[in-house]
């Protein structure tokens, strides 16, 4: 992948992000932040790449593994916590019916 096309990817990704969050009700600010935060743990892919390409280099394997741990802590925790928050909103209407 050439650098220029990666820059295009960066640009289009940013525009997409700007466009996606249009009008958010204040109620959802915290869950949205927490959900977006979980997505930022996508660096786990970079950590995985590092481990796969380490080729037996133990210090690098350890760094990759720790990095993967941190990223997954972010991802798994982030999604669970967001779900817990959102579960409280969705419970309401069904209770009333």
């Amino acid at each position, binding site marked *: 992948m050439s650098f220029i096309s990666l820059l295009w990817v960066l640009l289009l990704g940013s525009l997409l992000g700007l466009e996606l969050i249009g009008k958010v009700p*204040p109620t*959802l600010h915290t869950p949205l932040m927490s959900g977006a935060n979980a997505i*930022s743990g996508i660096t786990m892919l970079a950590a995985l790449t590092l481990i*796969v390409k380490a080729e037996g280099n133990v210090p690098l394997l350890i760094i990759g593994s720790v990095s993967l741990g941190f990223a997954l802590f972010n991802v798994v925790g982030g999604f669970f916590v967001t779900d817990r928050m959102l579960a409280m909103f969705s419970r309401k209407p069904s209770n009333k019916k």
Partner: protein
Amino acid sequence: MNLPVIIKFVIDLLAVLLLALGIKGLSKVKSARDANRLAAFAMSLSVVGLLAYYLGTSGIAIQSWIWIIIGSIIGSLFGAILAKKVPMTSMPETVALFNGCGGMSSLLVALGVAIFPISNSVENLDFFKSLINEVSISVSIFVGAITFTGSIVAMAKLQGWLSTPGWTQSKVRHFVNIVFAVASLIAFFDLINGNTSSIWLLVIVSSLLGIGVTLPIGGADMPVVISLLNSYSGIAAAAAGFVVDSQLLIVAGAMVGAAGLILTQVMCKGMNRSLVSVLFGGSLSAQSTASSGSGEYTNITSCSVEECALTLEAANKVIIVPGYGLAVAQAQHTLREVTKKLEQNGIEVVYAIHPVAGRMPGHMNVLLAEADVPYEQLKEMDVVNPDFPATDVVLVLGANDVVNPQAKNDSSSPLYGMPVLDVQEARTVFVIKRGMSAGYSGIKNDLFDLPNTSMVFGDAKKVLNDLIGELKDLGVGEK
């Protein structure tokens, strides 16, 4: 193009699409929960795609598998446990902690690649390519470190483990931070020049910069900072994407970075603060000590729970204004019991939610939803403000700055211009509060001096419990 490449390409494309749909769905109440799951699914899909790609091309060594499994199990386990155990009131600091760890992850990846260049980046290293490689490593380390230390400081401050040191409120802090910033810039250029040892300097100074920038910021502004740091962790992820040549990482990182920035902007608007003043203005209380010298209350009316109950019984319309004090006292369930009684007596009850009630926008909604308050009873500020003149009783529970009329009347007040709830328009206002201490901003609240305001002193939960008892005695809600 061989098969693994095609498969990875398709999976990446699908993952990006699902992530975008996930973020989009998260901004609507109805679709939010499914959207969150969709995003989680997209993330796992991307992992499967990556692993399948390597299995199909270079293969994955047993040793790598072992380290992958160790890292994943430990990280996921801790994440899941914390997410299940943490009380809803500590949500903002939890998000900060998760966020910091995401930044740490990007930092470590860049560090690993910098110290031990991985195979594909040493091949055909022409000048341009190695330059890009070093720039993206530096950016990833710089942003990752700031995200990590900044988030940890934010968490510690929200938890009350760290207070705001005095020196951070003086002009010295700007000087200190400029020194850190310049030092990281020097390390940055040194690193690009090929001096690998300066990487440690970069790690250290950017970590210090993260601390130095976050430490002076007051608690009220913390949500904005967390949101901004969240945006940073996206940028760090995108930078790590350049390091390991992953388009998916770049797209997802950029998406989170941009979305986080917008969210930060929205939050700033709700608090009537500009991002610049949040970041460089220090905490509000420090600025206000000079301007609010007339901090003496002259006309405080204190009243008993019994009087409060009597007034409530006679009311037709009651508006509840919950604030962080309610959350701290864990009184949302008790509050719900009180309002249930009132409703059974035919009294109309509405909750007025200020955009920044609690510690984070939407935080109060989450807490009240936890206590089974119907979603329709939660009214946003703009909707509820015209209703106050027609309201008999307003109960202010642990809220302070968001009901301060100074924000409208006193142009010299640091709060001036912040959108507030016009509770003083109601017939009677009860403020349930532990003592006369000031709110987050450290500013005197003119509301407490008004003739139609009565203070009920005590812990929110205890007062509400007493209130239930009094209402019972009056026969409210027994029908």
